[in-house]
C-alpha cells in the first residue's frame, strides 16, 4: 500500500508524456469548445437591450466559467473502451495485474496536465479582451467550484465508462454517449444561466445530473445564485450511482468479452 502513490504517479507521468505528443490536437479540441463565448456574445446583445437581470460583464464572467468547467469535465473513456474491445487490445490489458479502469483514469488525468497550460493561455486572452469581467470570486466559492468540477468529472467519467462497458455487448456503444453529450450541450446551463430557463424546465433539470455538471461550478465561480449544497449532494449521489453500475457491468461484461483479433 505504501507504494500506491508512487504507482499512481508513474502511471500519470507516462500518460502525460504520451498526451504531450498530441498537444496540437488537444489545442484544437479545446478551441472547438469555445461555443460558450458565442452564447456570451448573443446574451450580451440581449443585456444591451435591457432584457435580462444580468449585465454584460455578468454574462462574460459566467460563460468564461462555463468554458472552463466544460474543459475540465471532458472525458473519452467510452471511446477507449470501445476501441480496446473492438481491436482486442483489452486482452493485453486484462493480463496486467491492474484494473484497466485505472489506466483510463490515468490517461485522463495525464491529459489534463497538457490541457491546463493551454487553458491558462485562453484565460489570458480572455482577460485581455474582457478585463471588466475579472472579479475574484472569493476563496470559498473558488474551492467549492473546484470541488464541483472534480465531482462532475467523476460523474462524466463513470457514465462514459458505463457506456464503454456496453461495448462488451454491443460492439460499438459510442453512439450512446452522444445522447449524454447532447443532453449536456442543451440542459447543463451552457445555453444560458439556469435562471433564464423556464422555471418548470429548471425544476425538472435540477433532478437530473446535467445542470450540476456545468452550471453549478460556473455559477459558483461567477457569483450567480445557486444552491451549492443540493448540487454537491446530487453530484455525490450520481457519482455513487454510475460508479456502482460501472463495477457491476464490469463483472458481468468480462464474461462476454470475445477477445477479437487475439
Amino acid at each position, binding site marked *: 500500500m505504501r507504494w500506491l502513490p508512487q504507482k499512481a504517479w508513474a502511471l500519470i507521468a507516462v500518460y502525460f508524456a504520451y498526451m504531450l505528443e498530441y498537444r*496540437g490536437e488537444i*489545442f*484544437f479540441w479545446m*478551441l*472547438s469548445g469555445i*461555443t460558450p463565448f458565442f452564447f456570451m456574445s*448573443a446574451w450580451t*446583445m440581449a443585456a444591451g437591450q435591457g432584457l435580462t437581470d444580468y449585465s454584460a460583464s455578468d454574462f462574460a464572467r459566467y460563460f468564461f466559467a462555463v468554458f472552463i468547467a466544460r474543459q475540465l469535465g471532458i472525458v473519452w473513456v467510452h471511446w477507449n473502451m470501445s476501441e480496446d474491445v473492438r481491436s482486442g487490445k483489452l486482452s493485453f490489458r486484462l493480463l496486467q495485474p491492474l484494473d484497466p479502469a485505472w489506466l483510463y483514469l490515468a490517461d485522463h488525468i495525464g491529459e489534463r496536465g497538457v490541457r491546463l497550460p493551454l487553458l491558462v493561455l485562453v484565460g489570458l486572452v480572455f482577460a485581455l479582451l474582457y478585463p471588466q469581467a475579472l472579479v475574484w470570486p472569493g476563496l470559498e466559492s473558488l474551492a467549492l467550484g473546484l470541488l464541483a468540477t472534480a465531482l462532475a468529472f467523476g460523474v462524466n467519467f463513470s457514465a462514459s465508462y458505463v457506456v464503454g462497458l456496453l461495448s462488451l455487448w454491443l460492439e460499438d456503444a459510442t*453512439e450512446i454517449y452522444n445522447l449524454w453529450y*447532447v443532453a449536456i450541450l442543451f440542459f447543463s446551463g451552457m445555453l444560458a444561466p439556469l435562471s433564464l430557463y423556464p422555471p418548470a424546465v429548471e425544476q425538472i433539470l435540477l433532478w437530473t445530473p446535467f445542470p450540476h455538471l456545468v452550471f453549478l461550478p460556473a455559477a459558483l465561480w461567477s457569483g450567480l445564485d445557486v444552491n451549492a449544497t443540493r448540487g454537491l449532494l446530487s453530484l455525490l449521489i450520481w457519482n455513487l450511482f454510475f460508479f456502482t453500475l460501472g463495477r457491476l457491468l464490469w463483472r458481468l461484461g468480462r464474461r462476454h468479452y470475445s477477445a477479437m483479433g487475439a
Partner: protein
Amino acid sequence: MRYLKLLTIFWQTSLAARMEYRTAFLLAFLEAALEAAGKLFGVYLFYSNGFDLGGWRWQEALLVLGLASLLDAFFISVFNPNLRRISEMVQNGTLDFVLLKPVDSQFWMSTQQFAAVGLPFLLVSLGLIVYAGVASGLNATSWLLLVLGAVAALTLAYAVAFLFATTSIWFVKIFNVVFFLNSIVWTGQYPVQAYSRFFKYFLTFVLPVYFMTTAPAEVALGRLSFAWLFAVIGVSLGILALSSAFWRFALRYYASASS
C-alpha cells in the same frame, strides 16, 4: 456521369458496411430527435427572454436553424467521415493508393464514405426547413432561392472543411481542426445579427458562416435582394476553387510515409 456512378457505388458499400452496427443506427434516431429538441429549446430560450436575435421573427429564425441543422447532417454523414481519412491516410501512407487511382483524388477523398447515422439528422433538418418555410409564407420563387442558397451553403461548408482537412498533409494529426470547424458552424444556428459586432465580423469575414445559414435565409425571406444569392454562390465557388488549388499544392509536399 462516371463520377455519379462511383458515388452510388461508394455509398452503397458504406451503407452495407454500417449495417453491422444496427443499434448505432437506431440510437441515431433518438439522438437526432433529442438534438433537434435541444436546438429548438436554444432558440426558444432567447425568445422567451424577449430577445429576438437581432430582429427575426420566430419562424424566420427557425429557417436559419433548419439550414444549420442541414449543414450538421452533412458534416455527420459525409464531411467528417471522409475528411477524417485524409489525416489517417497520411499517417499510414495509404494515401498513395488513392493518388494512383484514375479518379480525381479530391473527389475520392471527399465522397468515399457515407455514414448512415447522419440520415435521421438529415430528415429532421429537412422537416424543420419545410415547417419554417411554410410558416414564414415562402412562395415558389422563394423556395427556389432557398434551395439554390442551401446548395451553395453546403458547397461552401464542404470547401472550408476540405481546406482545413488538407493541412493534415503537413501536420498529420490535425483532424480536430475539423471539429473546431463543426463547432463554429454550430454557431450558425442563430442569425449573425444575434451576435455582438466582433463575433459578427468573425463569422462573416474570417469563417464565412454568415453565407452558410443567415444569408440564404435572408435571400429566401426577401430580407436581402435576390442579387445577394449571386454573392453567396460566388463566395462558395471561390472557396471551392481555392480548396482544390490548395489540395494540389499540398500534395506536392506529401512525402508518403512507410513506403
